[in-house]
């Protein structure tokens, strides 16, 4: 009951974030990089969260910044989970030599640390948000393939798959109509936990300076405020809003992830003696 309540609360919070990101131009009173007032004004009626060191409205930056952050988190998670799911199902279903070869390649690629690699690649290509999220999705999918492959492998041996094959269903149909629906719980849980992971990572990468300074997102807002000494000058309205926004969506995704995992896999929840 409480787990279900958590799930619905987090879905509501996510819906709120998406609405804000979609309707950004209608919600934000000013542009993200527009200079609209005196610098470092505390919050008042004209500027809901005050202004930063060059007089940009922090509320507007927060609203527009949600787009970059959400695009990075969800695009990379969607791509990474799609790749792992397709590859995992194909490997698990066909098995044999392809499976053997790909698994050996995965064995080799697994220990390569993704984040330093991502930093090197983005420094080299100097791409935009969408391209980095694609890169992230592709690199991140390596770790998910195994997770999908194992249950797909055991599903491929079950009688109902054999039955489907005996009535002449094509491989594609078996994989998409019979194996995939049975894997949906794992895939959904993986998607939610990956989006939280990538979203936080995106904000973190932007905090350490992955994108150019013109891109307004929550990470660069926090970085700007922090490196300009917003903390030691007591300018809380500059640094708290983007931080609380990140914490909010990350908590919502984490709670959704755990509730999903537990409802699909009751064993982790209660195992009383």
């Amino acid at each position, binding site marked *: 009951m409480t787990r279900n309540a958590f799930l619905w609360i987090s879905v509501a919070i996510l819906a709120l974030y998406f609405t804000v990101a979609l309707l950004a131009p209608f919600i934000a009173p000013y542009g993200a990089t527009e200079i609209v007032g005196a610098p470092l004004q505390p919050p008042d009626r004209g500027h809901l969260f005050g202004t930063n060191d060059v007089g940009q409205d922090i509320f507007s930056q927060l609203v527009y910044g949600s787009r970059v952050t959400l695009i990075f988190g969800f695009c990379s998670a969607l791509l990474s989970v799609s790749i792992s799911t397709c590859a995992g199902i194909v490997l698990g279903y066909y098995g044999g030599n392809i499976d053997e070869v790909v698994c050996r390649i995965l064995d080799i690629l697994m220990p390569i640390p993704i984040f330093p690699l991502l930093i090197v690649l983005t*420094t080299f290509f100097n791409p935009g948000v969408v391209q980095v999220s694609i890169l992230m999705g592709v690199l991140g999918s390596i770790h998910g393939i195994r997770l999908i492959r194992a249950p797909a492998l055991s599903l491929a041996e079950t009688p109902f798959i054999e039955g489907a094959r005996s009535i002449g269903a094509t491989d594609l149909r078996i994989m998409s109509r019979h194996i995939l629906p049975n894997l949906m719980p794992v895939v959904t849980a993986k998607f939610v936990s990956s989006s939280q992971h990538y979203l936080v990572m995106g*904000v973190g990468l932007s905090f350490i*300076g992955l994108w150019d300074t013109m891109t307004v997102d929550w990470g660069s807002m926090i970085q700007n405020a922090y490196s300009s000494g917003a903390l030691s000058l007591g300018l809380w309205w500059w640094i708290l809003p983007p931080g609380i926004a990140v914490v909010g969506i990350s908590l919502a995704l*984490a709670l959704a992830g755990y509730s999903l995992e537990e409802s699909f896999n009751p064993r982790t929840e209660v195992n009383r003696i």
Partner: protein
Amino acid sequence: MIDGHYLLRRIGYSGAAFFVCITITFFILHLMPGDYITNYLLSLSHTIPQEAVDQFYQQYGLDRPLGEQYIIYICNILQGQWGYSYQYGLPVFPMIMQKLSWSLVILLPAVLLGIIIGIVLGAWSGWRSGGKKDLALFNIMIVFRAIPEFWWAIMAVWVFAFYLQWFPLGGFTSISVLISGLNPWDVLYHAILPICLMTSFVATGNYYMMRNSMIAVIGEDYITTARAKGLDERAVLWRHALKNALLPMVTMTTFQVAGIIMGNVFIETVFSWPGIGLLTTDALRMRDLPLLEGIFLLDALMTIGAMLAADILASYLDPRIRMGDQ
């Protein structure tokens, strides 16, 4: 004892993984617009005579065919010649090694403490899984982990260093170092807050895995058997459950520790701690590609090595792994 065939194969995979990393960095360096030498010389002075470029080309072997350059590059990497930083004009490898020692001041105590705390809490929580105390601790851990590392660090600086003034705002030593020289106690005083934060991140990660591992073990038949024999709960916990639950932790903990370097980037950046993390941020802001590649190679080397060690250790401790692998 360890099967030689298995050991060789593991070492082979690890070597191949590092080889892939070197290949990636080689191609990135060679695909760069302009080339390494021109960019490097440009970073040292604004105008460069063509003769100097030609001379450096010859000296660095860039006029040879790509295949030969590739072999030379691999030999150089293996010998510790990792190129020169654009920003500082210094060889990358000694620079990284010097910063690494500063990172280890935070990482070593944090990893050791974090693993112990995480395993103890996780075992306790897993043994009582489903109880009120377990769920309370579990929910606290979810919330703790969902909040990004750099945000914890910023909040810690704000509360403990700015408002309460218990700890310094950042850096690794006080200004008095100019008069009295580097004082270990002073460094420790600056390191306490980052160490505490890092310890809690490592501990939460290990807590989850230990709890899951414990829950999986409790469901096994041999635990039921041990109880049916009439052993008291304490003996079941210590002799049967805990030992088996700890086995998978050997590998899992390495995954954790390997991922820690990225978490360290945020901590070091927020606290201005002069380690690998701050160097990464610095190099990223300056787009110092050779330095970033060096950091990537070092990270890859450490991760690959740690995983190899964990695999060997796990197969040594648990014979079932070797049997299953053959």
